[in-house]
């Protein structure tokens, strides 16, 4: 009843092209932003910030990055954790070797370096596609893992191969408490999500989608595949690289190459498939699902008052997690974002569905 667009007339092209064309959506978005920026920091516990919201925010950013490539351009990658680690190690070395740089600059530079590496590993996509490409990107995963484990310069000759970071300082504002970390990440992620949303609505995003839907036809209408595929790899790796730097500096604090292994790559892919391919909103859904679900499953027996052995809880968690993934894929292969859209559609008609 409340959610309908009757009476909202668009009188200019500008209005017609805006990001959230429906008034109620704009109000909802404003309220949401108000809540996450203004209210959430005061009411949530530290545990929620540190264990769920902070990893959720960083992984959302990474999922957006991967979604740009997979969901919008149709190029599959199983090696995106590698580009995260490029971002993380680039940021580590920049902070270490050029300490006068502001962390925001470091973040951008780390993203750019990751983008360069992403472009390099994106080159095979010009020749191969589909599952072959997916497995080819695994080469990036293992090669990059190996490089950071072996080339001592990247880890500043640390004997253990593990690096640790100092607290981030932005114009005198130190990002140390959970709430500050959360706010910092929230700001970064909001900006990047907005940019991504507009990117995919623009020229570049349309080229990507044309490429995804039918590459030969796209070429016929004048979209250069080299340009479309490589920009997708570049932009995607940039996002993922920034996410990697944040993962290392804000969430982990100290890490080893194993922190960015193949499992993280697979988890990122899970996020966008469960959340919804080709949807920025879906990336958030998927990230939340993958971050929160194992924790929830792990703690559920205790809340329900069932006492199981630790091993049993952990095995059950794996089993339920696997089953739920299959369940979601069967019920809605297009992801949670699609469910959201259906829900909105229903809401528009409610309570008179005819």
């Amino acid at each position, binding site marked *: 009843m409340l959610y309908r667009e009757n009476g909202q007339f668009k009188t200019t092209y500008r209005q017609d092209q805006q990001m959230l064309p429906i008034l109620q959506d704009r109000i909802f978005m404003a309220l949401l932003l108000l809540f996450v920026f203004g209210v959430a920091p005061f009411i949530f516990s530290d545990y929620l910030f540190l264990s769920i919201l902070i990893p959720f925010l960083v992984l959302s950013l990474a999922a957006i990055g991967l979604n740009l490539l*997979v969901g919008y351009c149709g190029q*599959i990658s199983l090696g995106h954790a590698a580009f995260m680690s490029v971002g993380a190690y680039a940021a580590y070395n920049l902070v270490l070797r050029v300490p006068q740089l502001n962390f925001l600059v470091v973040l951008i530079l780390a993203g750019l370096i990751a983008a360069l590496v992403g472009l390099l590993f994106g080159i*095979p996509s010009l*020749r*191969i596609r*589909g*599952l*072959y490409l*997916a*497995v*080819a990107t*695994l*080469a990036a*995963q*293992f*090669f990059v*893992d*190996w490089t950071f*484990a*072996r*080339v*001592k310069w990247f880890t500043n000759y640390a004997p253990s*191969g593990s690096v640790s970071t100092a607290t981030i300082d932005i114009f005198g504002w130190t990002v140390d408490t959970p709430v500050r970390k959360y706010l910092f990440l929230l700001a970064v992620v909001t900006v990047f999500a907005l940019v991504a949303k507009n990117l995919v609505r623009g020229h570049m995003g349309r080229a990507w989608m044309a490429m995804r839907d039918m590459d*030969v036809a796209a*070429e*016929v209408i004048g979209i250069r595949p080299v340009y479309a595929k490589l920009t997708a790899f570049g932009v995607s790796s940039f996002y993922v690289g920034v996410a990697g730097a944040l993962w290392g500096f804000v969430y982990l604090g100290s890490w080893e190459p194993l922190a960015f292994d*193949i499992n993280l790559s*697979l988890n990122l*892919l*899970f996020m966008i*498939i469960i959340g919804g391919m080709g949807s920025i909103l879906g990336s958030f859904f998927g990230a939340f699902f993958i971050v929160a679900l194992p924790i929830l499953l792990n703690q559920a027996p205790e809340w329900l008052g069932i006492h199981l052995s630790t*091993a*049993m809880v*952990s*095995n*059950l*968690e*794996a*089993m339920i*997690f*696997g*089953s*739920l*993934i*299959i369940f979601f*894929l*069967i019920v809605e*292969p297009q992801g949670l974002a699609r469910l959201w859209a259906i829900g909105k559609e229903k809401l528009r008609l409610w309570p008179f569905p005819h």
Partner: protein
Amino acid sequence: MKRNRNLIILCVFLLAGLIMPLATGASDPGFYIEVLLGGLMAGVLYSLVALGFVLIFKASGVFNFAQGAMVLFAALSVARMAEVMPLWLATLLAIGIMIAFAFIVERLVLRPLVNQDPVVLLMATLGVTYFLNGFGQAVWGSDIYEINLGIAKEPVMILQNLFQGGILINKDDVAAAVAAVVLVALLALFFQKTKTGRALRAVADDHLAAQSIGIPLNRIWVIVWSVAGVVALVAGVIWGAKLGVQFSVSQVALKALPVVILGGFTSIPGAILGGLIIGVGEKMAEVFLAPIAVKAFDLAGGGIENWFAYVLALLFLLVLPEGLFGEKHIDRV
């Protein structure tokens, strides 16, 4: 023409790399042959896992990530059941379990997801992987378990008069190679001579046409997953007899991925040959190339075998986008 030239260049390059340690005298011939054999042995296992991949991909278009988990689960079943019964009975029962598993997967995962995007199916098999790993450990435990085939573990020296130091041979390696050859031969017979096998090949060629002439697709899927399960069981038993059965076995299966891109997703000879190439290639690279790389770049240890297989596969892909024996398809505008 140009493609062929590139392929020839690549092959010449690889062969040169293969011969290099011998030619430069970096290794004595006896040791060289040992590395070669070690590589072939690793390759046999990769081939077996890859074989499972290819069977399933051919028949149902599913990129089955769960093949590694299936290897673990089958091996665990054999190992744990063999503790209370004879090995042959345990193996038979485990085959039964894998067939039941194929039924369940077909009913609960494949059928509802028919006609979905390949990536969705890939993700579904990842879900199966999680489930199977959790289930296997919950039922069978996560300790290291033994499969004892009764083969001596101590190595045997052969050809001592021909090469200095002789060549080390393991009886269980030989047994494994024989088992793999027998398995492949049986599979070939099954595909060529039986009615079901011919139906499977028909489905692999064109599943719509196969369906239209009355081949039941669902049953074919169950059969193919069962066969893949048996292949996984053989791989698991070979592996388990050598190194013990534990959760980690499932992670070795990742190595089968470069094998299938090298050999082509749909080719059984490709899986076998690809496995052997990757096995030999990475052991050679690790033993002969890694020490040079470590010295040259002051690396913290070798370990290039972690990525060598993937990079090798990638190089092949750039020359042959469909793999060694994959189906060629031509896009028309």
